[in-house]
């Protein structure tokens, strides 16, 4: 929790610095969709135009009604008095005759025009909104694609530093925030500015004095909206934090219910939940308090503006410098002014969020890939299986400490090299250097004489089979998972590989056989089944070099036997590097490398090492105690 809050704080700071620049860069993505953008902008201009026309027509109608009735009355007067009355009413003779004769016509026209503008407004507002939404989807599409492609290609060292969850958040949440801002926020901002300016200009044209009176309210409103935006955002973040605290307690108690019950800790857990529960409630109530204060205040300001227009406009009406129609028009325009101010306030507060998101997204897109093809990389010819480590040292980027130091060994084609050592001794790092998941810091790894850095990554990895302890399967059928490395393999090839991996029988026991879908990350399969599919997957590549972790995870005895037999078949005739957990592997190995703190501390065959290396003898005894006893008992 504490680290989360810290990283959040850290993020925001970073967002502030490089954020705006990143946002500018993100905005340029819009230019990939010029057509959509221009249609949206044109539609926006037309729909705002139509929107601004309606109050004008409203004015025409009202004035026609007022003056039309007045004109009718004046016309009813004796001709001698008409001139005086006209002067008083501020009408000319022309207007009089127009209002008297064609008032109804003006009215019909105005109504007709309102309907026309209604249709226009509807059509173009729809076009604008739709295009904006489309643009936002398009932009999200681009960002997700680029992110995914980048993430897929970033080397292991990057993935060591970044957790799946973090990357997920960037590809989902951050993209979403940016998408809303780029696709809709920017356009809305444009719309707000145009509407605001248009309405203000029209207000000025309608009545200068009344407009000047309204002007001081506008900045106040803008500031309030911005305050509102910036106050509400962190409040929501806090609610989210409290909610996730509460949820993680709930989650723990659901998943760990047995532990809670076993230690009879229900009371304490309930108290913990209650604290978090009340905490969340109080935060929610704080939010409610802020909202129930700020919202009404903002509306009140807008409404007081209207009341002011009523009074000061009314004074002018009575003085004859403003018509009732103009007054109505003016108060409608005032709404058109307040509304975009509100939008701008929100968009501005969104901007900082969007720029932080943009910054985080570009952080991934700009991450440098440690392992890439050299410009002059050649295709690795068909591999024989000669693997040489030549004085190899390895340390992680920006770490001074060696993970591997001066490792040298050679494996001839078909040999099995067993790697032994405790956690952190460097076993995994050694095998990771062969398919060039990392690059050596010093020295070189050579396959058949080619430095692995001189050949294309794809040609290198296609010729190396890998079976890891933690097996990741992918959504799709069992067949697709076995053919993962060679999607073009024939059915027979897939079945052969499965048979060799002792997987065929259990696959056929499923109703759908090879077409059985593997749930997300292989959830429908047991650990042993997943492992055998991973073996089949590696077998199908028919690689000359094999890398594997021979430990079997929790499986019953029979399955373990089957898996071990499959692994042994897999290693036959291939240069194999094995992180050894089994005695049989060690006994059969052509070379055993005993690692300690990144160095080879002993090497040789089993018999030699038992004699010469106390460390080896120690590991051997401790690890294989069961076998030893079993042998005695038999």
């Amino acid at each position, binding site marked *: 929790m504490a680290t989360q809050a810290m990283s959040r704080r850290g993020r925001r700071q970073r967002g502030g610095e490089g954020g705006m620049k990143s946002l500018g860069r993100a905005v340029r993505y819009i230019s990939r969709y010029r057509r959509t953008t221009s249609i949206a902008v044109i539609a926006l201009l037309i729909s705002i135009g139509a929107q601004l026309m309606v109050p004008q027509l409203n004015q025409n109608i009202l004035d026609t009604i007022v003056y039309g009735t007045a004109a009718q009355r004046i016309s009813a007067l004796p001709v001698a008095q008409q001139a005086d009355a006209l002067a008083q009413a501020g009408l000319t003779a022309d207007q009089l005759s127009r209002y008297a004769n064609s008032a109804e016509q003006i009215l019909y026209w105005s109504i007709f025009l309102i309907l026309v503008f209604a249709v226009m407004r509807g059509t173009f507002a729809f076009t604008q909104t739709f295009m904006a939404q489309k643009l936002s989807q398009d932009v999200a*599409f681009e960002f997700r694609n680029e992110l995914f492609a980048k993430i897929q290609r970033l080397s292991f060292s990057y993935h060591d530093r970044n957790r799946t969850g973090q990357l997920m958040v960037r590809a989902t949440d951050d993209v979403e925030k940016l998408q809303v801002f780029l696709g809709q926020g920017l356009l809305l901002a444009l719309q707000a500015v145009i509407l605001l300016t248009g309405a203000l200009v029209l207000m000025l044209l309608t009545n200068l004095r009344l407009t000047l009176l309204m002007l001081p309210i506008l900045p106040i409103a803008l500031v309030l909206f911005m305050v509102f935006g910036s106050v509400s955002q962190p409040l929501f973040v806090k609610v989210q934090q409290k909610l996730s605290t509460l949820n993680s307690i709930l989650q723990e108690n659901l998943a760990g219910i047995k532990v809670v019950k076993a230690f009879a800790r229900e009371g304490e857990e309930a108290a913990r939940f209650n604290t978090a529960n009340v905490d969340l409630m109080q935060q929610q109530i704080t939010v409610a308090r802020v909202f129930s204060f700020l919202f009404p205040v903002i509306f009140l300001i807008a409404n007081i503006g209207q009341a002011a227009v009523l009074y000061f406009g009314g004074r002018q009406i009575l003085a004859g410098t403003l018509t009732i129609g103009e007054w109505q028009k003016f108060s409608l325009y005032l709404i058109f002014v307040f509304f975009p101010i509100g939008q701008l306030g929100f968009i501005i507060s969104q901007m900082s969020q969007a720029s932080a998101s943009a910054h985080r997204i570009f952080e991934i897109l700009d991450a440098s890939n440690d392992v890439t093809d050299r410009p002059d990389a050649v295709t690795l010819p068909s591999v024989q299986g000669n693997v040489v480590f030549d004085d190899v040292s390895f340390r992680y980027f920006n770490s001074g400490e060696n993970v591997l130091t001066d490792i040298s060994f050679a494996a001839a084609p078909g040999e099995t090299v067993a790697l032994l050592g405790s956690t952190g001794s460097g076993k995994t790092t050694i095998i990771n250097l062969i398919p060039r998941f990392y690059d050596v810091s010093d020295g070189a790894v050579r396959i058949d004489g080619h430095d692995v850095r001189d050949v294309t990554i794809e040609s290198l990895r296609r010729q190396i089979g890998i079976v890891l302890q933690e097996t990741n399967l992918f959504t799709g059928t069992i067949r697709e998972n076995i053919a993962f490395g060679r999607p073009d393999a024939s059915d027979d090839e897939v079945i052969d590989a499965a048979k060799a991996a002792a997987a065929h029988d259990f696959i056929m026991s499923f109703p759908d056989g090879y077409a059985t879908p593997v749930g997300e990350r292989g959830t429908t399969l047991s650990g042993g089944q997943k492992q055998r599919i991973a073996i089949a997957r590696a077998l199908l590549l028919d690689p000359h070099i094999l890398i594997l972790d021979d430990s079997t995870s929790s499986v019953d005895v029979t399955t373990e036997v089957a898996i071990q037999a499959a692994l042994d078949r897999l290693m036959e005739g291939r240069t194999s590097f094995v992180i050894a957990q089994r005695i049989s592997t060690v006994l059969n190995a052509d070379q055993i490398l005993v690692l300690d703190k990144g160095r080879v501390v002993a090497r040789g065959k089993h018999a030699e090492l038992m004699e010469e290396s106390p460390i080896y003898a120690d590991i051997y005894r401790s690890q294989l105690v069961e076998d030893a006893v079993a042998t005695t008992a038999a």
Partner: protein
Amino acid sequence: MIGGPRGLLEQEALKPKSVSATLRRFGRYFAPYWLVLIVTLVLMIGNAWVQVITPELLGQAVDCYFTPGVANLAVEAAPAAADAATSAQPTAAQTNCWFDTLPSNAPTADLLRGLGRLSLVLVGLYIFGSISGGLMFFMMSWSGQKVLTALRGDLFDHLQRLSLGFYSKHESGDLMSRITNDSNIIQQAISFALIQVVSGSLLIVWIAWVMLRTNFLYGLLSLAVVPLMALTTVWFSGQARKAFRSARREIGNVNAELEEGISGVREVQAFSREDANIESFRQSNAANRDANIRAVTYTSALAPTLEALGFVAVAIVAGVGGILMLRGQSLGGTALSVGLIVTYLAFVQRFNQPIQQISVLWTNIQSAIAGAERIFELLDEEPEIEERPGAKLMPPITGRVVFTDVTAEYNPDEQVLRGIDLVAEPGQTVAIVGPTGAGKTTLVNLIPRFYDVTGGSVTIDGVDVRDVTLHSLRSQIGLVLQDSFLFNDTVMNNIRFGRPDASDDEVIAAAKLAKAHDFIERLPEGYETTLGERGGGLSQGQRQLLSIARAALANPNLLILDEATSSVDTRTERQIQSALDDLLAGRTSFVIAHRLSTIRNADQVLVLKAGQIIERGTHEELLALEGAYHALYMDQFRAQEAVKA
């Protein structure tokens, strides 16, 4: 503000089954806050009143002050004729001016004074409206949050009381997402939707009533577009919801591929599948984009259509009113006035928003009721294991455990254990072996009474476990599970979980006994290091050591241990082994055994198959029997021999 009702339309709409029962039960949670609710309702009415009355006041401003002024202009010039006109044609049809019904020839100063007063009243009303609106929102949220908190608390307490049988039937992940989802929807409904829908409906009905009452025909004409608005909204949101449903599926695919691509990135690169994966992602990404674009077609159309309909309403009000006035005709017996037109114009502008909100939020409320229903269903789930009314405290355990003809079953036609008899003397270690599904876990689960026997009895020191309180029983039994569940808390607190009142020194002593002290010391902040979710950041072996330390701290005389089968590295393995040996010493222990050494050291080995004990004895005795145990044992052994050959 941005995105409008989209977020809400994206939610899945759920249909409740028994609305009234659920609402009644939900209502009970609100009962303590009845006074607050009544005040909220009063405020809501007040707020709506302001919204209804202000357009009328604008109309009054026109009729009582503006039009008399305009009429004046003509009147001053021709008093006689104007008088005649006024009497023949009552300009101020709506003569119920609040302050003064001024004669049409009133001096401008009087009109201005009246207008000033009216404006002040308007400001006052606006202030009142804001205060009542704010208070109403706050009080509703306040009581809503109180109710939600109570509901969450009840739910949590209940979930804790439910027995393991319930949890074996429900995935914790499913439960979790159900609960968070449902409470989220309810939260939204309570803090937002409910008040909007109620006050919006109130406003619409009130305005409609006022419009119809003032002038029935004119009101009817002005309201003509309202049903159209409602229909449009319902139709568009229905379509949008349908479209979003498929969009949600697509985004689900995108996220699944994303997750897989990231978490499986090492395999992807190992098998050179980058390009294929990127292409496949691109396709689901595009499908998601297209589904979303289809969906936003409807949401994009909603607001503009309503706005256009609003303009039509304006045209009707202004047009009909204007023409009738010009012709000097009345409508439905009442003459129209400019003020009335202005009032009605303001009214029709207030319809748009509530209609849109109600139709969008209505589904939200429906879903919330369905959510509440499901939460109540969970609350109605009966715990299978409950303390007897007169349950006593379990006396301090010595450690003699006796199973007498025990049967256990999850459902009537599926017996998990049959005829189990066993006696474990204090300090003895009982190892239980057998294939998966033989009933090993069920057997040990009967001791801390996670499940109840369906026949026979389990006694500890002669006391039936069903006769004592759960707390006194379980707090004296130590448990080390295969999946060492750790909490998102410090190492210290995770170990202390075994005995909350233990001092730091005791915790450290337990960690030393469990051989966990050394690696804990090497963690960045030692004992104060916070562990990630489910103990993330530690290796499996380290997690096991912590869970052993936890059990050691509890210092129970009776211990249940489910040995982990997964492989850990050699050194850790040895540490676990020796930690377990220390832990088992002198305690009655039941071990689901996977390690040969454990089995060899056990005082009794029980071989379980299909719910029955088929062999029992010590390791040597069982080997000599050459029965099932021997076969099981030799299987492993032979396999290793075969490999060596």
